């Protein structure tokens, strides 16, 4: 009986330790989230933000959003941009990680140079992208040298989206490479040596050793990559201002423009809540997967 009481007290003491983190989460995350949620159910705009008179309008902002062709385009852009970036930056990042995991001369300096793009501020990357994808920019100049007439990258919707995906991958590849390399270095060389003795070829080692042992790292990289990419903002804002005709607008830029340029605060809040909901679902999925792994 005494042991049971002591155990319960220890458990209660444990709760005390999470109070600071709980308060932090409540203030820094909880308050803005609840405020934003309430805002999204009201009709707050330039006329009533400070003067009062805003009312609850239920799900009207959300209903309007899902009937708005521009928002649907923005939602589509966000998913296409995120998935395309994830596929390319993960695949190329993994290939680089495998490559630089080999011990060869100049591996370190070259790896360092690749990381430069990751360290550059996104606004600078956006300006670079605007210049190199202009009609007379570097990309079209290089294409011209091999006899190919380059497209008007930032003028046509589909190519503009490709251009921002390329620029985002330019930043994302080193990030993926860095995280995956740390996963690769944690795999003992003994395992590979044993497999070699058993006669496994490169492909078999990759499929049956590297991939399974890297599962945790891969999921973490994909999850972080999804979250970072899904809420992209500054690259589009600088490179294309979301244009042409919303072709590169994503949820982040669309929410910002609704709230801070058009002063339609409740509409902007509703867009932000959609963004949050998407990331929340992905986060839950990740947590569930981690819990399964722990079991």
């Amino acid at each position: 009986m005494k042991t049971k009481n002591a155990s319960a007290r220890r458990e209660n003491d444990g709760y005390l330790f999470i109070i600071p983190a709980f308060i932090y989460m409540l203030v820094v995350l909880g308050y803005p989230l609840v405020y934003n949620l309430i805002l999204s159910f009201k009709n707050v705009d330039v006329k009533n933000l400070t003067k009062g008179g805003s009312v609850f309008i239920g799900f009207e902002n959300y209903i309007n959003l899902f009937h708005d062709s521009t928002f649907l385009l923005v939602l589509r852009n966000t998913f296409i941009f995120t998935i395309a970036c994830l596929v390319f930056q993960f695949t190329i990042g993994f290939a680089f990680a495998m490559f630089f995991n080999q011990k060869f001369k100049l591996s370190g300096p070259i790896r360092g140079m690749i990381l430069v793009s990751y360290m550059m501020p996104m606004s600078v990357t956006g300006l670079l992208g605007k210049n190199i994808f202009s009609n007379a920019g570097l990309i079209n100049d290089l294409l011209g040298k091999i006899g190919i007439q380059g497209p008007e990258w930032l003028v046509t919707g589909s190519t503009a989206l490709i251009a921002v995906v390329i620029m985002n991958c330019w930043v994302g590849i080193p990030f993926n490479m860095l995280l995956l390399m740390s996963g690769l270095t944690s795999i003992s060389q003994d395992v590979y040596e044993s497999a070699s003795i058993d006669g496994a070829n490169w492909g078999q080692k990759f499929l049956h050793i590297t991939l399974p042992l890297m599962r945790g790292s891969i999921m973490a990289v994909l999850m972080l990559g999804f979250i970072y990419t899904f809420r992209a903002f500054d690259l589009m804002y600088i490179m294309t201002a979301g244009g042409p005709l919303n072709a590169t607008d994503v949820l982040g830029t669309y929410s910002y423009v609704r709230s801070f340029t058009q002063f339609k605060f409740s509409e902007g809040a509703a867009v932000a809540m959609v963004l949050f909901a998407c990331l929340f679902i992905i986060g839950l999925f990740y947590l569930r997967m981690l819990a399964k792994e722990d079991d």
Partner: protein
Amino acid sequence: MKKQLTLAIAAAAASVSFSAVAVQAEPTEIELWHYFDASADAKAIVDWVEEYNTLQDDIHITATYVSRDELMNQYTVGALSGELPDIGMVDSPDMASYISLGVFEDITDELEAWGELGSFYEGPLSSCMDPDGRIYGLPQNSNCLALACNLDALEAAGYDHMPTSLAELQEMAAATTDPDTQTFGFAMCCISTEEGTFQILPWLRGTQDGAEAVNVDNLTADSAVKGLTALADMINNGYMSKECINWTQADAFNQFAAGKAAMAEVGTWHLAQTDAIDGFNYGFCLLPTGDEGTSSSTIGGENFGVCSGAENKEACVAFLEWLCSQEKEGEWGVTAGKIPTRSDSTSEYDYEQEGFAVFTDEMNYAYARGPHAEWPSISEAIYSATQSVFVDGVAPADALAKAMETISPIVEETPLP
């Protein structure tokens, strides 16, 4: 004895200095936020604030640069949190929205007591007012748009003058376009921001076939459709780069300065940047947006307002009155390449005098944007319509009709002045 005397003198000196400190009151601290980032005006605002601080002892101004986008965000957030500077700068078409958001303080009574409001041009001053005519700030500088021409390129194409009508502009743009060197006849900014609307509007508000120019509440009028059609034709014929949909005004001017565009729609402030022009003869003329000899343009400029909650409203107003005085308005125009907002101020430009004369004349044909609290929504409808014509090939009449679907309900609820 000597020691006692020394102590007495020291004590007397200390008491005198103490009383001096006690008598001299601390100056009132005023925080001013601005987004001047061109070399000329960014330096000028710092110099002027220093000058004001040395001219008197009662008020001490601290000028802080905040990027334009960030400053606008701060105003919006500050409208709720109350974290605002004492004096804030704002782009003239945005001021109505920020007045509506409660960012600026009503200073009508103080300014009326000043007695100089009658000297300000009506357009710029109206951008500082709410729909009831109450005043929340002062217009500090004005600008407008005109046409910059590469005279060498025009001469090579057989023209000894600059265009005087929209038809002639199109003709000259065709003659000066050279696809081999990727040189275009005309450049302008049509980006999907307020900058784009600023440059697009003159073409929608031109006088066509003798018809009256229209305001943004009637963009389905023939004159507006013809103006947009003329721009679309230049895009479709390759006289103007489609990339204009991503160009800022600085980008469009840079195209002209680098010799990549024979003509460009430029702002008054570009006169202070003509040293960037790459070795060719250039000139400025009225923006030929319609019939022979007619022109239309857009008024731009910056206002300064006293922010809500400013503890020393009187001190803030006193600084604004000095900043926008007859003498300082004239000085600012010369220093920053802008046009005074007061009819009694004269800027004696010591550079690009002919160019300034053109822009000063152009002000007679320049229209203000709004003022309207929902101008950003009107603006979005205008640049989106233009981009849909340039990018998707939508017919100008259809694009403008779609824009009016957004604009009409807004102006029906609160009409334009």
